[in-house]
């Protein structure tokens, strides 16, 4: 099939197999290897990307389903050398350890802050409950999202694209 899609702000037209997994298309065809495969069956959240602003699992999505839509991966967040506030906060608080789960957490956090600029710690914990991290114990991740939220509120920066 002929796929028309916008990935990280760039409009693309490609001939693809409609049943290809979105994660494979993003990683192997486009080189966005920030999209990670953990479990492959929707239990770990590592492959989270935003489609039209909503977090979805790219391991359980096939490319024919995203025809005409906008996909955002972790690679599309920074503006030049400036990291997105959520990325910057993960770096500063120690929310990243081995880093494998990080892109998934960042994408779901970006969605949260777009919808709720001032979440409580409990609301943050609930929103990220579909993402698994085996290093941090989650405390630093919640700290990072809290810090990003605070900075984005005070700086009035816009989340996402």
């Amino acid at each position: 099939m002929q796929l028309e899609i916008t990935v990280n702000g760039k409009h693309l037209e490609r001939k693809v197999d409609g049943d290809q997994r979105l994660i494979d298309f993003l990683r192997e065809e486009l080189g966005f290897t920030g999209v990670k495969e953990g479990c492959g069956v929707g239990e770990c959240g590592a492959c989270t990307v935003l489609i039209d602003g909503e977090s979805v699992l790219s391991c359980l999505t096939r490319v024919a389903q995203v025809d005409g839509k906008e996909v955002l991966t972790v690679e599309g967040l920074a503006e030049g050398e400036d990291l997105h506030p959520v990325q910057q906060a993960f770096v500063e608080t120690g929310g990243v350890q081995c880093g494998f789960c990080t892109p998934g957490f960042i994408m779901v956090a970006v969605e949260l802050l777009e919808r709720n600029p001032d979440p409580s710690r409990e609301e943050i914990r609930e929103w990220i409950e579909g993402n698994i991290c085996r290093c941090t114990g989650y405390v630093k991740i919640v700290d990072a999202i809290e810090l990003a939220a605070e900075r984005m509120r005070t700086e009035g920066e816009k989340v996402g694209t």
Partner: protein
Amino acid sequence: MAFELLVPEDEEALFSLMEEKDYRLLAGGTDLYVQMEKDLLSPDRVIDITEVMAEPKIEEKKEKISILATATFQEIAESLLINRYFPVLAQSALAVGATQLRNMATIGGNICNASPSADSLIALYLLNPELVLKSSSRERQIALEDFITGPGETELFRGEYLKSLEISKISEDFSHYFEKVGRRNALDISVCTMGYILKEEDGIIEELRLAYGAVAPTVIRATSVEEYLEGKRLNQENVAEAKKLVKSEISPISDIRGSAEYREKVAARLVEKIGNNTDSSQ
């Protein structure tokens, strides 16, 4: 394994695609793709029905609320109409998976998969929706309890798709409750789920609807418990009797999530929640 994934844009195209080949209908994909990944299903053709549906997904129609099959659990959990009229449905939607899963998974998918542990089915068994099924030649309505016939088994015919659910509004005097017992809060399949809607007058139960999941081949209504408790007070003696009745209603199995004995204990214990949390929706 390779398959043909098609995304028809209208009903006519959908019906013609359903005329041939071994197909499965796709909405969110959170269950279908997992089953295909595990080789439990291997259809030649997968048909995405989401483009066929017109907005709005959740609509008030006089005495009823109509929900399109492709409404996602996030949309249901956040819907003002659902939170106002059917808090138990909003609560059960929020128990599904986690954020990303709720953005993808649909209520129609949950119904057609007919899993005995499907979270939203608890609420739906309490609310008795009529399902609207459409094929190229006719549209019919069927009650949810008649539609689901066993684990993973439904009355959906070849060439038919589930279009929407119509739920009659219920009295705002009901209190609503949903509880999921599992090993992990997110993304877990339950060991036992329970939900009820309850109307009390001066401490006496006027009407009770009680449903259980993951303890029988389908979600069930514990009708003997409902009948026993109606007209009574929730005192120790009545609750003890209700616990015994629950055990006679269920037929749990042992699997990797829990033993039959454990499930039976949990199911009986959950009876104690009736009336203790009269407004968990707030």
